């Protein structure tokens, strides 16, 4: 054995020595990082193929002729001496019709096609183009030969899914006069138009994922991103084009919120990034979404959804790239003039991936071992959200709303990722383990949460939800605040020691919490609450309080007021089927009316 070993070693040594003169080889493999030499011309973020199996990787450091590469696939079994091939540029994603309904890995490969290549378990080295190269799409031009086009102009359309027209755009760095354009059935890489300089414009285009796609200008946020969740729409609304941080310890329902929004929120396109999360959860999304209907259009939910999946046991470097892949897709649809929502679950796992790679690069760590550039990277990610006027003609307005879940260790919000997210996000939906423990879902803590979009969206809610929306909202927030104070006092002196007005406040606040704010993602009639329903429930609760308070002021004792009837009516109304709705509203109004002295 030892003789055979030394012979093969000698042979290996010769092979490697010969190779060193010409082509780059691996000199080190440790975890997700590989080092290769000689690569004197390597550029940062250049895409490379690592080893004989051509695993995907990206250069993250260059020192002299040595390049350090983060590898997007499992590095087990890579050996020193294996070849490394550099490609032309950074990681680019193929954008075009066929993205909707697809499930991609962290570097943009469809998981189903990876499964065709490597079976039920993912093996490294699979080649799978993002878009189906064979499928033909019917392209209908909207401009003619002779037109001068520039970046972002719409060339024509493709019916990508039953409810969404895919607008084929001139790529951002291109301009010229159209010399040929034709209708017909094309594959994504086929040229549908030509420019005078010979440039071919295809159905698809490529974009480097780490770079934000350009827009003509940013627009102020004014319409709300309607989530169908009462506590969010009513108390902490976010505007289309806004951004939210959703931190919560484990078991507080982060994932359920993200999934509920993906199901019910008002958006044309949803990009859901499962970043370092559970495989079974992704399976649930994949099972459920095709069966669920978009509440507004009645189409299958999968028709408006793109999933980017890097479960916690998939390679860590691809976790880092997954958020950029998702963001690029979201921006692409924004540029077509759509309202896009991006959910990332969770940004903490992305930050941990940064930390892992940074530690292996032996960079000087910042807080809790995270790299010092964490806050910066997180900010540039969140800032890709926004409502914009897209480049090109015809004029289009697109919005990209970003909802990022954060998983703070031990539920402690003072940790670096939560804090970095809060500095840039426009709203905080803080999830509280105590509420989750009481099975109060969504477990959004109304004292800690905030939204910087509340004022901007008020006019919209006043018009579409109810006349007194802002007043009811402020009243409710105040009531909840006073309830918290009173509960502290009651905790000291006992609830029995409280006076009637205080007890009334506690009663109504409880209704407000349990009926208005709590909402079951699993109740068919309550999973999505229209803004009208949200307003009505809240407004009824608040007028209960006002009517009963007037009764108390008139000297009536609290015990004689029939608050139980109001409560029953509100509980029934909350889960009422559409056909029971009108009767339910009438009963609730009657119950509230009965309180007035």
């Amino acid at each position, binding site marked *: 054995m030892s003789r055979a070993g030394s012979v093969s070693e000698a042979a290996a040594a010769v092979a490697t020595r010969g190779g060193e003169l010409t082509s780059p080889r691996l000199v*080190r493999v440790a975890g997700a990082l590989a080092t290769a030499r000689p690569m004197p011309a390597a550029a940062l973020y250049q895409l490379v193929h690592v080893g004989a199996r051509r695993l995907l990787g990206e250069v993250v450091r260059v020192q002299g002729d040595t390049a350090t590469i983060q590898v997007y696939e499992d590095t087990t079994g890579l050996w020193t001496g294996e070849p490394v091939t550099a490609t032309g540029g950074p990681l680019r994603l193929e954008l075009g019709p066929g993205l909707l309904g697809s499930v991609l890995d962290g570097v943009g490969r469809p998981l189903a096609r990876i499964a065709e290549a490597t079976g039920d378990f993912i093996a490294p080295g699979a080649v799978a183009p993002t878009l189906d190269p064979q499928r033909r799409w019917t392209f209908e031009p909207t401009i003619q030969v002779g037109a001068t086009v520039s970046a972002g102009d719409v060339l024509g359309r493709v019916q990508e899914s039953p409810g969404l027209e895919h607008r084929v755009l001139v790529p951002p760095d291109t301009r010229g006069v159209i010399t040929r354009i034709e209708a017909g059935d094309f594959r994504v890489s086929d040229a549908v138009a030509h420019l005078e300089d010979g440039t071919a414009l295809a159905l698809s285009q490529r974009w480097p994922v780490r770079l934000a796609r350009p827009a003509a200008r940013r627009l102020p946020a004014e319409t709300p991103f309607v989530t169908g969740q009462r506590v969010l729409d009513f108390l902490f609304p976010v505007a289309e084009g806004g951004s939210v941080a959703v931190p919560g310890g484990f078991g507080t329902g982060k994932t359920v919120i993200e999934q509920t929004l993906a199901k019910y929120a008002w958006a044309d396109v949803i990009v859901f990034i499962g970043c370092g999360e559970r495989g079974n959860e992704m399976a649930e999304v994949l099972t459920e979404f095709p069966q669920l209907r978009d509440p507004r259009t009645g189409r299958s939910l999968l028709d408006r959804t793109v999933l980017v999946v890097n479960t916690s046991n998939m390679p860590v470097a691809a976790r880092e790239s997954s958020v950029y892949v998702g963001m690029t897709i979201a921006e692409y649809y924004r540029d077509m003039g759509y309202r896009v929502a991006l959910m990332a679950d969770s940004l903490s796992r992305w930050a941990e991936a940064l*930390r892992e790679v940074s530690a292996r690069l032996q960079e000087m760590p910042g807080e809790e071992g995270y790299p010092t550039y964490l806050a910066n990277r997180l900010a540039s990610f969140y800032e890709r959200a926004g409502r914009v006027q897209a480049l090109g003609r015809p004029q289009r307005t697109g919005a990209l709303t970003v909802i990022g879940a954060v998983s703070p260790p031990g539920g402690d919000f003072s940790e670096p990722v939560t804090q970095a997210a809060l500095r840039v996000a426009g709203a905080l939906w803080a999830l509280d383990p105590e509420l989750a423990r009481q099975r109060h879902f969504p477990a959004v803590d109304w004292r800690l949460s905030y939204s910087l979009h509340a004022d901007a969206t008020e006019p919209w809610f006043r018009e579409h939800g109810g006349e007194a929306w802002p007043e009811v909202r402020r009243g409710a927030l105040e009531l909840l605040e006073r309830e918290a104070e009173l509960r502290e006092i009651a905790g000291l002196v006992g609830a029995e020691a409280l006076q009637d007005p205080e007890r009334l406040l506690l009663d109504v606040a409880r209704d407000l919490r349990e009926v208005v704010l709590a909402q079951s993602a699993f109740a068919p009639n309550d999973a999505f609450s229209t803004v009208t329903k949200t307003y009505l429930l809240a407004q009824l609760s608040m007028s209960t309080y006002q009517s009963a308070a007037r009764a108390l002021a008139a000297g009536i004792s609290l015990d004689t007021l029939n608050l139980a009837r109001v409560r029953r009516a509100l509980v029934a109304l909350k889960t009422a089927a559409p056909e029971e709705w009108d009767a339910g509203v009438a009963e609730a109004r009657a119950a509230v009316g009965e309180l007035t002295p």
Partner: protein
Amino acid sequence: MCLSALDRAGARTRVGGTMMPLPRVHPGAAAAAGPLVFLRASRKVALGEWVILRAPGQAPRRGQVVDAAEDMTVIQVLEETAGLAPTLTELTLTGEVPAVTVGRELLGRAFDGLGRPLDGLPDPVGDALAPLTGRAMNPSRRVSPYAFIETGLSAIDGLNTLVRGQKLPLFSGPGLPGLEIAAQIVEGARAPRGEPFAVIFVGLGITARERDAFVRRLEASGAMERTILYLNEARDPTIERLLAPRVALTAAEHLAFEHATHVLVVMADLTHYCEALREIGAAREEIPGRRGYPGYMYTDLAAILERAGVLAGREGSVTQIPVLTMPDDDITHPIPDLTGYIAEGQLVLSRELHRRGLFPPLDVLPSLSRLMNAGIGAGKTVPEHREWADQLYALYARGREARLMAAIVGEGGLHDADRRALGFAERFEKEFVAQGRDGRALAQTIESGWRLLESMPRDDLVRIREATWKARRAAAGATVRAGGRA
């Protein structure tokens, strides 16, 4: 994955059929520190490659390449390194990644953490040698878990339902009966329609006492012939602990997906595993994360726990119940914290209930099964399961809050409803949770819960819909009338 098995290892374990080098022998290593050996100027070294270290006059040791580099390769040694002189040790780089024997033949047998027999019998031949690092299940090939597993424990079956393909850890504390409850679940769990079913128990740094108690219960329940034991005890090498769960899960995946078997993997104690991880991290001079645990602990734990699941078009499943000890009962400690983020829920034991002599001392408030909804309801358990569970939970939560308040203001200072909830909480703990050592069928669990609910005024039961309530009253009435006639 014993040495003889390695000698047999064929092309199967040569990664992906790439031209992985043949075995190479180095006459000596450059340095050694703790569990690590450093090899200088080695060419063609693969990451994860299996290494045999032969020191004169000592039994061969096994190691794995954790950092492959031409200037300095790092090898993690699985056995005790005391007495190892690096310069005198001959190292064979085998050209293979570690693999383990898998197959149905392993059932009924006991192995150490690396898969060597502990029962005095010869090495199993098995069906195949499978690389033990395992690969991630392709999420698009997974089936969302949905099949209810009856454990016989009311607090689990009723309120934190376990389903096939789930990973549901037990958060125990020092001196709390975590392993005992795991044993009870294993005894009680069977496949409802008689499908092939197997249990794999992985001891990770457990004491001889814990091992004996667990194995004795398995034997007494007659479950041994469908069980495989992988035992790494407290006295065994720490590094072996890092491989033991992977060895066991490789065997589990094979049984599940090649032999259509429903496999329940119980691992105890994950805390010892994490400490081994920290030890090796420190030896490699890595930048530590929280409380000295490595920053990649989440990824590492996920690589183990994510190996639970169900695959499309395959009959079997892998379900995991890892048991861990929360140091100082602290649920925010990195070990339970990260586990909680990866797993699909957690079952938390309560020292207070344990102190009061209640068994099993499961605290349902912080406990959670994320996949519960998929496993309950009409056709699976009972139609009203969700609201029934929500109502029990809500009343108990309110009662617990009232208990805190009563400690300050006295019971007399409580609201009527709070006082009722307080009484409910007491009965809930004694009658529903503390069922003792006997298993309960699901029907008994549901009935026990209903009886508690029915002792409360209807107005307190806000989570029970009117239709459900009427159906229950009608059913209960019918039972009473039928009972009267009998």
